[in-house]
């Protein structure tokens, strides 16, 4: 690993990954990765396809179990914890392929995220009217207010991406893991998207985002972690990572050595 930055005086660590490895039938998708996600900032994971970025998300959220290593959320290990429990601890995510609740309306997609509802009779935080009010606010903020009654399946592409964001906004999570949320958006939409994200960080949300578009990476990142072939190659301030010729040659596929 290149020692790019020591980052002195950086904010508290919310999630710590220590020597994490995940192999699938002997192939290491993630290999000995150690990484801290710090509170109140946007950390961007960059790297070529197959670098292990999404696998890292799946390991954090419990959708996959690590082969070895540890993941600590606020100093408690969460390895082996069920995904729905990790979500309730405060880690929410989006999916690269969105995984919207496709036969439900936009309104229901957001509402159901606010409801735990493991039991028929389970009481919820706040009244039904308050939840409905909050759903409308979120739809307003994501520009979906006119599509509340539309089935998720019937939305246009950009609207689907924003619904994926609306859903995560409805959680009470402290940390958001966003898997390529801006890919395929036109320039105007991603301007809206960046503004939305900045607003959420100001609200105190910690974000870790996988992103390929360098323009977006530059405009949103507080820190960048660079992965390649399952390994963390560098971790530091955006200028240091993006200015490093060795890393950019890997990213742009000019690997010779």
């Amino acid at each position, binding site marked *: 690993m290149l020692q790019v930055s020591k980052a002195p005086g950086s904010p508290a660590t919310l999630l710590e990954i220590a020597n994490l490895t995940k192999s699938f039938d002997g192939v290491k998708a993630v290999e000995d990765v150690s990484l801290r996600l710090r509170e109140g900032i946007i950390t961007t994971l960059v790297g070529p396809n197959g670098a292990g970025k999404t696998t890292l998300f799946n390991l954090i*959220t*419990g*959708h996959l179990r690590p082969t070895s290593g540890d993941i600590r959320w606020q100093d408690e290990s969460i390895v082996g914890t*069920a*995904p*729905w429990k990790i*979500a*309730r601890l405060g880690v*929410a*995510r989006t*999916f690269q392929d969105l*995984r*919207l*609740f*496709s*036969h*439900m*309306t936009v309104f*229901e997609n957001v*509402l*159901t*995220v606010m*409801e*735990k*509802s*493991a*039991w*028929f009779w*389970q009481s*919820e935080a706040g009244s039904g009217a308050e939840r409905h009010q909050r759903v409308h606010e979120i739809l307003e903020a994501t520009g979906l207010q006119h599509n509340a009654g539309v*089935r998720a399946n019937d939305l246009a592409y950009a609207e689907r991406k924003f619904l994926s964001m609306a*859903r995560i906004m409805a*959680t009470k999570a402290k940390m958001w893991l966003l898997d390529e949320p801006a890919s395929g958006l036109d320039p105007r939409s991603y301007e809206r998207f960046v503004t939305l994200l900045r607003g959420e960080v100001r609200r105190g949300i910690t974000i870790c985002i996988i992103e390929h578009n360098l323009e977006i990476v530059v405009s949103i990142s507080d820190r960048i972690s660079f992965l390649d072939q399952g390994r963390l190659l560098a971790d530091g301030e955006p200028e240091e990572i993006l200015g490093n010729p060795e890393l950019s040659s890997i990213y742009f596929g000019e690997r010779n050595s």
Partner: protein
Amino acid sequence: MIAYLVNLATLVCINAILAITLNFIMGYAGIFSLAHAVFFGVGAYVAAFIALQWTDALLLQLPAAMLIAGTISAALALPALRVRGDYFVAASLGFQVLAATVFSEWKSVTGGIGGLVGIPPASIAGHAFSDPVQFLGLAGVTLALVVVLTRAIVRSSFGRSLKAIRDSESAALAFGKNVALIKTLSVFYSTAVCAVAGVLYADYLSFINVESFTIDASTLFMAMVIVGGIGTVWGPIVGAVLLTLLPAALTYLPFLPRTEIGSVQQMVYGLAMVLLMIFKPDGLMGAKRGEA
């Protein structure tokens, strides 16, 4: 003639309850069970056994049947938590075949192949429902209760969680849904209420045997749900009405010899299913899909 129509209407009510409960797990939880007739049978056998051994009191038969069917539903819920889609269909098919064997072999409880005869009509607070018209009323009220309760659940936060799981299990997990518990509860509800239909069936016919609870019955119930429209409120009821009345209607065709009705019926079913899948793949009430 009246007696004949009352009989058909009663069977429609019972089949509608079966279709609604199957639709609850197929349409809202995404669990495609080919073992629904097992729980129909469990309800019927429990009611018959209690009626013949102890009491004809409906309000004792119902909770016993629901509880036993709901408990046995763990046999369905466990594979449903592990596998999805085709694999679960195969698992439920295996369970159905196994249960039918138990129904026909466990002679001391089920009466074996011959079944149980002379089941007394159900009674509530000492009033016996021996008059078919009164029994139709009982079946109709039960159906109405099932419709209201199922609708309320589907529209509740629990129903939304169920639909979320159906549409994307991994996303539901990522948003804090306890998928295993929600699926288990939904299967419990579906099978327990399915057993209610079994209780009514045994008390109504006063005779039951394994033939009503085989894979053929499970297939028919699934056909009702698919014909009517999976995941719709009225679809399973429409499907139950059509597929219950169709065989009766065929007997009125004058040019059909009595002996041929069975095979003609199968051909009509088959043809109707093929045409439906071509022209209305979401079922007759399919346009309403996705609504609660």
